[in-house]
């Protein structure tokens, strides 16, 4: 077990034990699946698997759910990203329905994010009116409104 991951896990465990739900915690995970077996997701109440409309990304989303369940984090949902058209939407929806991964939202492909990237600026500051930031704003509303999601 790697000490860096263990430290994060320990810190989150202590924070949760002491402050409960008084604070929102958003963890940006490493790509792929390896971190799941290290338990970095142990103290979260939900894992959001971001999926793009292509097979290997969807397949990773499915594996995230599988592994998380083995580790006792049952609450795993998918989030579609970089959706360009109806075909993209259908590909993601069909895959997720077939594999029991409920979708919590959908973020469209947003070409203005590339500009933010080039300028080294946060999307929320550089393209606040863009469709991607708008969709994440909706996602925040959805998550806040959800009962039982602490």
């Amino acid at each position, binding site marked *: *077990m*790697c*000490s*860096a*991951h*263990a*430290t*994060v896990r*320990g*810190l989150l465990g*202590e*924070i*949760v034990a*002491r402050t409960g*739900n008084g*604070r*929102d*915690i*958003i*963890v*940006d*995970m*490493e*790509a*792929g699946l390896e*971190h*799941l077996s290290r338990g*970095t*997701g142990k*103290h*979260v*109440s*939900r*894992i*959001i698997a*971001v*999926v*793009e409309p292509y097979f290997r*990304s969807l397949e*990773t*989303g499915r594996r*995230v759910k599988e592994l998380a369940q083995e580790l006792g984090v049952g609450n795993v949902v998918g*989030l579609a*990203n*970089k959706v360009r058209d109806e075909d993209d939407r259908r590909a993601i929806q069909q895959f997720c329905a077939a594999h029991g991964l409920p979708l919590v939202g959908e*973020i469209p492909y947003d070409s203005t994010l590339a500009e933010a990237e080039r300028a*080294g600026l*946060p*999307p*929320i*500051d550089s393209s606040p009116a863009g469709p*991607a930031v708008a969709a*994440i704003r909706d*996602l*925040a509303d959805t*998550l*806040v409104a*959800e009962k039982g*999601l*602490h």
Partner: protein
Amino acid sequence: MRIAIAGKGGTGKTTIAGTLSRELARRGRQVLAVDADTNPNLAVTLGVSGPRAQDILGLPRNLMTRQTQSDGSTKVVFTADPEEVLREYGVTGPDGVRLVIMGKVGHGGAG
């Protein structure tokens, strides 16, 4: 809420984690953003940049201590005060989001 954002490389995890953190903070919520990537870059998406980004320290490895249990086995436990750790190693960015980064994975160390 406590949410981990996972998925294949390049799918948009950091973009979503950073923007969602800012959006939640704008709703008056206290938000802790954790960069658990060994190649950290959540700071930019949150808007913690420039000299302050250089000041962010990864969490040190001495926060965990090996303790002997009553049955003789040992267990590595987190012994530091978490709020103090957040004060010392976290930085606060736009909209008041607090950021801590895991930092690089240590070499060869067990635990």
